């Protein structure tokens, strides 16, 4: 009996992870309709469900085999077979890390917002858990149709969370967020349709499957010309529409304008999840879809994208520097840090891409932590202006300590998580994009400038403001949340191989797929035949490390 349950779970682990949150809230809603459950039941059940989700993610990690290639734990069920639309889920190393991040952040965020949200709590929990299902589904979907469904469905819970529990300009912010994101996705829909029907003209039947089912063909087997043929069948157009949707999500300059409003106006848990996970979906989209499917176009567009990434890094940092609102400062720092991730991705070498993926996880943890910590002080003082604070370290020393750790993590102090990712990105990017890397490194300095200056204005100096003198330090729940966030910061910083090992295979495969599908990565990386022996020796050195 136990073993059959075990195998049942093993066969459907991914589905369980994806649908557990939604199933929980649907059951709660049903029970609520019949019995009128009190809010505390909802809160504890949601928290328990999110912790079970985290346990499932850990089980997934344990079951994941870092050495094998391709997708693992694949589940497939027929949905609309005549169009090649299937319910396909699968995981690779990169998705594993992001699923772990998502599963980790939800219980932390729920615990952090325990007293933050007090009106319409049941709806809030409903939307947060529904959002969780949407995000996990998008990371695990292997069918483009399914991916698109999850990609769009995520928007609805976020729309409601910002719109109902947000700040004064929440309605403007949430509409802007929704419309901006959906415009990009709608154009991506055209691209997806073209791909599916291209599959029909090349292989006889339409398919939205990324990898072929049962040895059949999938989208990844399509040969998409980079030149010649109608404009809408070329890699350029297809990459463009996919990249636009993802660039809006990341967000890349100049498509970032929805982010400051959405982050600032969203309630703390909303901001934490938005910055922690939703933004990563954009970069994940590049890694999973845009780069491997359209490699030649990716290389053609890469100079522009790298340019925009670098602009984003510097611009984000400069604007963050002049902010007087603490939450807006963190929001713009997100723009800056996501620029680093895109830079690492488009270095298109193992270090760059690994660094980018690791930084996705790191940034999720650091920025999530920063938003949660800002939320804690906002809950007490109901202001976020930097000049309303000062000398807080004297009133709330524990809070100051945790905020300092989060700041250093975000800045990239060696020993904490931010450093490893940033270092790998800069290392990788310097090999292929030296000029851009030099400019990007200034972003590291700038991030230290604005974060440390903000910290100084908030925590150090004289405790002048009367309102600040009576502030209560972190309670047990808040300390728990803070410690939970600090642990991965230290772990990633000190022992990153736990996190880089699972993704190594996936990163190599990404680059291999790009080369196999026609991208001249060697030229992009500036290599030629003379470099081969040196590079082979370097690769030897790395694998032996």
């Amino acid at each position, binding site marked *: 009996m136990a073993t059959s349950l075990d195998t049942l779970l093993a066969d459907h682990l991914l589905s369980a992870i994806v649908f557990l949150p939604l199933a929980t809230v649907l059951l709660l809603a049903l029970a609520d309709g019949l019995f009128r459950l009190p809010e505390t039941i909802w809160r504890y059940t949601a928290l328990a469900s999110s912790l079970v989700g985290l346990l499932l993610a850990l089980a997934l990690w344990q079951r994941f085999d870092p050495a094998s290639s391709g997708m693992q734990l694949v589940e497939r069920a027929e949905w609309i077979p005549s169009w090649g639309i299937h319910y396909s889920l699968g995981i690779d190393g990169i998705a594993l890390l992001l699923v772990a991040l998502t599963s980790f952040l939800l219980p932390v965020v729920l615990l952090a917002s325990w007293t933050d949200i007090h009106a319409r709590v049941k709806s809030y929990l409903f939307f947060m858990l529904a959002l969780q299902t949407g995000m996990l589904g998008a990371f695990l979907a292997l069918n483009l149709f399914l991916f698109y469904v999850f990609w769009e469905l995520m928007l*609805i819970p976020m729309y409601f969370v910002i719109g109902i529990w947000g700040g004064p300009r929440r*309605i403007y912010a949430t509409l802007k967020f929704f419309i901006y994101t959906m415009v990009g996705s709608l154009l991506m829909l055209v691209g997806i349709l073209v791909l599916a029907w291209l599959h029909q003209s090349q292989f006889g039947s339409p398919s939205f499957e990324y990898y072929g089912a049962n040895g059949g063909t999938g989208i990844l087997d399509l040969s998409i010309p980079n030149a010649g043929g109608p404009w809408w069948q070329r890699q350029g157009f297809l990459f463009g529409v996919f990249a636009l949707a993802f660039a809006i999500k990341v967000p890349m300059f100049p498509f970032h304008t929805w982010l400051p409003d959405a982050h600032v106006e969203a309630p703390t848990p909303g901001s934490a999840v938005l910055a922690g996970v939703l933004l990563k979906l954009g970069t994940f989209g590049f890694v999973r879809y845009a780069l491997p499917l359209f490699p030649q176009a990716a290389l053609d567009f890469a100079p522009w994208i790298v340019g925009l990434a670098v602009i984003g890094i510097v611009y984000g940092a400069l604007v963050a520097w002049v902010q007087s609102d603490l939450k807006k400062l963190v929001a713009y720092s997100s723009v800056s840090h996501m620029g680093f991730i895109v830079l690492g991705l488009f270095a298109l070498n193992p270090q760059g891409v690994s660094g980018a993926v690791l930084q996705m996880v790191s940034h999720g943890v650091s920025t999530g932590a920063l938003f949660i910590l800002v939320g804690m002080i906002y809950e007490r003082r109901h202001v976020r202006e930097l000049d309303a604070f000062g000398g807080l370290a004297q009133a709330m020393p524990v809070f100051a300590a945790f905020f300092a750790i989060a700041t250093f993590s975000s800045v990239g102090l060696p020993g904490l998580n931010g450093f490893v990712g940033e270092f790998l990105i800069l290392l990788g990017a310097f090999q292929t994009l030296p000029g851009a890397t030099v400019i990007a490194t200034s972003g590291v300095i700038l991030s230290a400038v604005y974060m440390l200056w903000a910290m100084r204005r908030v925590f150090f100096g004289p405790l002048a403001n009367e309102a600040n003198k009576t502030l209560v330090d972190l309670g047990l729940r808040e300390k728990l949340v803070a410690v939970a966030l600090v642990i991965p910061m230290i772990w990633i910083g000190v022992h990153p191989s736990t996190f880089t090992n699972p993704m190594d295979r996936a990163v190599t495969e990404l680059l291999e797929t790009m080369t196999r599908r026609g991208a001249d990565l060697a030229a992009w990386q500036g290599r030629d035949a003379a470099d081969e022996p040196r590079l082979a020796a370097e690769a030897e050195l790395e694998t032996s490390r």
Partner: protein
Amino acid sequence: MIPAIDVAAVAPMIPVALGVLCLPMLDTALRATPELLGQRVSAARRGTYLASASVLFLAASLLLTLNAFSAPPRVFNPDFEMVKMDGVALFLMSIVLIGGMLTVLASARYLEHIHSNWGEFYVLVLSSVTGMMFLVAASDLIMLFLALELMSIPVYALAGFRRASLRSNESAVKYFLIGSFASGILLYGSSLLYGATGSLELSEIATSFDPENALDLVGAGLVLIGLGFKISSVPFHQWAPDTYEGAPTTVSAFMATAVKVAAFGALLRVLNVGLAPVSESVYGVLWVLAALSMTVGNVMALIQRNTKRMLAYSSIAHAGYLLVGVIAGGEPGVQSVLVYLLTYTFMTIGAFTVVSVLTRDGAELDRIDDLSGLAQTRPALAAAMSICMFSLLGMPGTAGFIGKFLVFSAAVQSGLATGSSSLVWLVVIAVLNSAISLGYYLRIPATMYFYPPRDDAQPGKATFFEGLALCACAAAVLLLGLLPHDALPGLSALLQMADVNVLQLASDAAASFAH
């Protein structure tokens, strides 16, 4: 000499037609009966009985229609093809009947609250539905005109049903004038086609159609213009916003869905059967109409403050999306139009029904601001409205997305097959228009959820029938959105019929269309 007609061929239409005859008698009988089943027969109860009877007649027709799907097609008159009961006709008949049922369910209480609770309402609805059923099956020009008139004239009267309201009268007069004008144009076009080709049957017109002959082209053009009015495509759309806003809300629902479905059925048949030789040039013109309808509809809807008017412009925009499917043509195109019409019916009637439920004691709460805080005062209504709104904007997971997905898919397929980019451009325009439509569709859930309820707000409460209609719409939107393949196996098991697979039905219907 009675021709050898097979009445059983048009069996689906018979129950509704019988209903038209029986309902007035039932109404009179009920008026004469002070007490029935131990309860006093008040005006409201009379309305409920009549509504139930109408639903029964419509359901009987629906049963016969679904039955006819699995049976081999019957020919009504072997000498002269007046109606063609093929898969497309049956599919659209089902949609029209479902639309009629939902309208009737939503109207019973609503009519009482707008002080227009007369039994004639149901007679008019059933007459119009009879006309629609013949319209989607009509395969000759006279039948087309007859059915069109049988469909339209009751709706003119229905638009003005709220006699005491100036807006209702205005809506009826506008609709009547423009609708009659459109029917006249259609009739003139038909006469030209008859003159040019010598035949009234659509299939024979196709064989004798001469693309060089001006008479043929003008006739075809006029017929299309007449139908264009009925589907409220730009530039023939001007009547729609005023008419939808002024008419009683459930009548607007009926007009927005069933009338449009039937008109699109006629359009499909005329284009694919009658005008097949010139379909290329016609599609060129329709391309422009589609692009204009989508754009004008969506842009104008952005500035509306009245929910019904906004839904009117939204239906103009959806006519544009549907035309994309019509232009895509072939089997995928026709299938996409059929499924889109089905999904569109559910979501639009759902939206209009929510507005009609809010009506109370003559006060119609049809401004968007009236929906403020509905999530807190009427959470179930707000949820139903949100589902319909997200479906109308095409959110994946809802039926609206499946409809749009199919239409865009058919267009892309057609573009790939012919190698032309014009359809792909149209899809890009459609997609950008969907983005524009977010601006007004999102306003409704935002108003309901993000704003507090108004102090003086007294929204109505739904009765059982309205609740049933809303549940059916919301469930259909979600089911068709998530499981379009087997949306109705449970229902078909209930009806002990062959597995009704919506997509397969539509696909089969499209495959055997015009052959």
